[in-house]
């Protein structure tokens, strides 16, 4: 169980019943298969990806759940943002197929061996994968749509507050 895993890997306890393990990307399949054989963590609940643009990496968290559904283990893999590619987990977990398909579309990560990485939620998307940090959704919206006249909240709040304060001050001074 968790004691067994702790013997072999450096497992951190993040919260009650939530553990974390950081591994290298080239050992991913090996370690996950060993975890699923040797421990109770048999299910893949989620593949969560975070874009750490300042470190130039994607951090992928494979969240595993036990057979009893009482503990969660986050297995973190860090891969380069530029040539992002990982082996697929399709053979271990069938549900990985749709999760990888989702991440492929949202981040452009290539999962080697998964041949179903076609369109998931978007249709005819030609821009940068939208969940990458460099994709600016506001700029995209401003370029492709125009807002209805009177939609005032499409403004930088800080600048607007400053402007109003200055305006109020001016009118006060004027009096």
């Amino acid at each position: 169980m968790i004691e067994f895993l702790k013997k072999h890997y450096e497992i951190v306890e993040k919260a009650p019943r939530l553990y974390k393990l950081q591994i290298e990307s080239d050992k991913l399949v090996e370690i996950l298969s060993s975890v699923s054989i040797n421990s109770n963590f048999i299910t893949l609940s989620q593949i969560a990806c975070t874009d750490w643009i300042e470190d130039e990496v994607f951090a992928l968290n494979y969240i595993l759940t036990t057979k009893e559904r009482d503990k969660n283990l986050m297995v973190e893999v860090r891969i380069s943002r530029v040539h992002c590619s990982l082996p697929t987990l399709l053979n271990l977990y069938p549900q990985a197929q749709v999760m990888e398909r989702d991440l492929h579309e949202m981040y452009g990560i290539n999962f080697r061996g998964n041949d179903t990485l076609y369109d998931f939620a978007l249709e005819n998307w030609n821009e940068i994968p939208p969940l990458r940090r460099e994709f600016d959704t506001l700029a995209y919206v401003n370029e492709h749509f125009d807002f209805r006249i009177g939609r005032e909240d499409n403004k930088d709040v800080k600048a607007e507050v400053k402007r109003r304060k200055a305006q109020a001050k001016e009118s006060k001074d004027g009096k």
Partner: protein
Amino acid sequence: MPENTQEGFIDQQKVLDNEEYSIKNTQSIIQKAVDWFRARSMFVLAYGTGCGAIEMPPIFTSRYDIERLGVVGVATPRQADILIVSGYCSYKTLKRVIRSYEQMNEPKYVIGLGSCTINGGMYWDSYNTIKKLDEYLPVDMYINGCMPRPEALIEGFVKLQDNIRNAKSEAGYIQYRENNAFYRANQEKIFGKNTTPTFEENFAGMNQ
């Protein structure tokens, strides 16, 4: 009638937005009767494009019972008079909504539900939802709110019936037919080459 261009239509819209502008339609008696029947019986195609779909079951069921007003749901666009666009439209949905709208038979009306159809609402900075529904489809009635309550929806239906019965505003489908270039241009702007078939293509066999 406005010119068949985008600028001409925008000018026309500005005029329509003006409070002082109101259509003084004179209905003949036959036309009045026809409009009365059209207002009294509405077949609704409730396209659940977004969250607004959750308030559809309450209004069609026993608490609010909109069937009292002659409003019933139908399954296919062919038989529907009213298209309810219930909530935000993503690109992918909008294409299907336009397709459904063009399959409907005239006279047809569109009800836009929720703030997101009016100005993007909560998703104003989302890359995948449209901001103004009336750029792509002629909307006859907007019901605002996030979500609009069932009472608001019923009020919207009553107002629309009133508009139809007394010919208070020019129906959207006429605008769609006459200013098709405007709508087409907007649709093509976001869909590119993947736009739905043109109005003429859809209606090629109509007058044979």
